[in-house]
């Protein structure tokens, strides 16, 4: 598999503040890669470092096997990018901006542009100063989707879009995926990207806390056990141990430790048992909450 984007040991500080520490992950050809993390985690900082807008302190960033920030005339041929906060020059119209962005990227204007304008319901004759946040975002998205490149980078692309347009966005991502393109998508919310991504990296306080495919993540995640037992004392050291008034106990356990725990439960005289896998959302709330993952214990 071709590595489209390869980040290794990336560090970035702003003054004394370490915004990124030792960030590494790889995005392969044809993947839709979700880059998730809470506010201020370092998603935008990572993306901006990839683009060369921010100068990294150390580490390497490779785009199609070349240093991403070395000669941007070469490397940026391969990418299209939509920032999270889209600022457009107030005196240009949306249509002019789309044309300009395409021309600057060296892409031809095809019929696709008009199709996308129609799809996203953008009025291209309006001056940028009169667009709402979502409409500004659409301008940049249309320009990006119209470009024929290898890697599409979107920083929180749906934050300003209404649900209908967010659906359109997802459809476009799936179309890119079908065409064998690679997409890097940052977001706060897993459920927003769950349907389209194959792979995710979770970043928290400038560190990558998890990378992998969605199914892998679920595999790794801790299971929740609810049980009625005669003797609860062997379980009090399990993570998230809790006892209800009716005597029911609950705790979490990593998948790998499940057989051992089952034996213990039997020994303790289990009379009722429920084992639940976490939903993805729970999983991510765990990451956001503590940064540590339950299966570590």
């Amino acid at each position, binding site marked *: 598999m071709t590595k489209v984007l390869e980040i290794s040991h990336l560090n970035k500080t702003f003054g004394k503040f370490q915004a990124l520490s030792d960030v590494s992950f790889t995005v392969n050809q044809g993947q839709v890669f979700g880059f998730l993390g809470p506010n201020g985690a370092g998603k935008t900082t990572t993306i*901006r470092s990839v683009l060369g807008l921010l100068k990294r302190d150390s580490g390497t960033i490779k785009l199609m096997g070349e240093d991403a920030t070395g*000669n941007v005339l070469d490397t940026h041929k391969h990418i299209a990018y939509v920032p999270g906060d889209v*600022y457009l020059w107030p005196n240009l119209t949306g249509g002019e901006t789309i044309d300009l962005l395409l021309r600057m990227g060296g892409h031809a204007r095809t019929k696709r542009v008009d199709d996308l304008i129609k799809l996203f319901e953008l009025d291209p004759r309006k001056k940028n100063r009169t667009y709402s946040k979502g409409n500004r975002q659409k301008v940049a998205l249309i320009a990006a989707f119209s470009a024929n490149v290898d890697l599409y980078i979107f920083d929180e692309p749906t934050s300003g879009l209404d649900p209908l347009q967010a659906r359109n966005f997802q459809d476009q991502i799936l179309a890119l995926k079908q065409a064998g393109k690679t997409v890097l998508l940052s977001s706060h919310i897993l459920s927003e990207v769950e349907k389209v991504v194959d792979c995710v990296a979770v970043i928290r306080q400038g560190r990558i806390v998890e990378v992998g495919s969605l199914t892998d993540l679920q595999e790794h995640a801790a299971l929740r056990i609810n049980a009625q037992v005669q003797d609860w004392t062997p379980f009090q050291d399990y993570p998230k141990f809790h006892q209800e008034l009716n005597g029911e106990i609950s705790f979490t356990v990593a998948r790998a430790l499940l057989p051992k725990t089952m034996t213990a439960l039997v020994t303790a005289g289990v009379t009722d048992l429920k084992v639940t896998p976490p939903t993805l959302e729970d999983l991510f709330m765990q990451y956001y909450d503590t940064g540590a993952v339950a299966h570590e214990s």
Partner: protein
Amino acid sequence: MNRNMWWLLGANLKSDYRVIIVWLLVNFSLIVSGALKLADLYNSPETLDQLLTMLRTPMMTAMFARMPELSQYTVAIVYAAIMLPIMAVLMGLMNVQLVVRGTRQMEESGETELIRGGVTTATTPVLATIFEVLGVNVLMTMTMGIGVVLIPMHGATSGGAILFATLLGTFGLMVAGITLVLSQLFAESRSVNAIGYGVIAVMYVLRAVIDVRRAAEWRWLSPLNWLESARIFADNRAGAILTQGWFAIVLGLIALALVNGRDINAGLIQFAGRGRQRATVWLRGFTSLFVRLQARLVLTWLVGLAFFGAMFGSLFHEVGTMMIDNPQLTKIIGAQLEASMHHAIYRHFLVMVSMFISFLAILAGLNVMQRFHTDTVRGAYDLLGGMRLTRLKLYATYVSGAMIVALCLWGVAFMIVWFTANMVLTVPMDVTMMQQALVGYVPSIAVLIAIAAVLLGWAPRWFGLIYGYAGVMFLMTYMKNLMDLPMWALKLSPYGWTYNVPVVSLSVVRSSWLCGLAVVLLIVGYIGFKKRDLV
């Protein structure tokens, strides 16, 4: 008047207090050092007489002020006459800056929306700004008044000192009022700033023309002429205080009425905001985008500079005739042959005009370059982050754009001066002299723009400082003769190195040395620009 207003006032003061302190220091030290210098330099009747003869020449009148016609003069009278217009300009600049920060800039950053969303009315931010400038101008008035009183000057009275300071304070308030109205009319802080500063510059140039022409019937036109009519330490006429005060109040009320009638983030005139569906073939890439974005700013500067050039050029006639009426002048400009005297005086006047115009051309160039910084802060380059746009191209576009704009504006304005001067004169201007001046200011313009480029590369957050530096150094060079400032102090800026061109001709060695320095600075700036974060 509600709690929000006071809260907002507090927030304004918190973000402005550094600016206010700097202005306080600058104004106070100018007031005090001017008084000290004049009192020291012109302490005998003979020296004072010489000073007056010099100040009565049209050139000095254009540069500084009209002297009141009196039978008896004191140092204090001369001091007040010279300082009043200059200090008024500074007060005006400060008030434009504070009002724009408090109104338009706040609105642009979204803070106003945040506040208006709460329980406040549209007028609250305007009211808070009004209270802020009221307070600041009162503070300035007191500081400057105390400054004048502190320095013992022959002929100074505390009554005159109070009038002097109060006139400046009310002038400041009037400019604040003008800016408040402007910030309701125009939706962009850049436009309000430009027009506000432009109004002050027009006041100054009009004053120069009206005073040199002795056009008493036009004196109502420029508020700086109103100030001159106060004849401080002689008659102490206080009329202008009332006029300015009334203007300030009326303008403030108009602004309050206007803000109620407009939408947030909009000017009074709302444009429908529709345009072309497709970009023209001209909008091809970054360079053409740059040209498109800067065109309006540059055109505005061009119109302004053309106006100033024509005004100054037309004064050459008066400058020449007055000299013939005034044989004493020979002493000041040096005993030269009668025939060459005209050229000598033209040369001196040309120095003043060139300095003024080159300074404005530099400001225009700095404006162009500063756009990079403001756009970066707004996130415009984030959008271009994925483009095939090298740092070198970005840097080169902005820096050479600024350089070209400054040099072209200088050239155009200078040619207009030349042209109008030839129109009003019977004998055309000496071509060699004009060429020397035209070329002579190129190195200093280039070096200043290059210094700005270093800031752009290494300390973009401090870019605003370059305006202060250019302004202070310009003022020092402008006042060098009057205040007898030491040459080393002027040498702290390129103005000092090209001082008095074309009275003295600039050596080829020095100009190439300066141009070389400019190139080195540009490279140093690029090194920083390549290394820095662009967001």
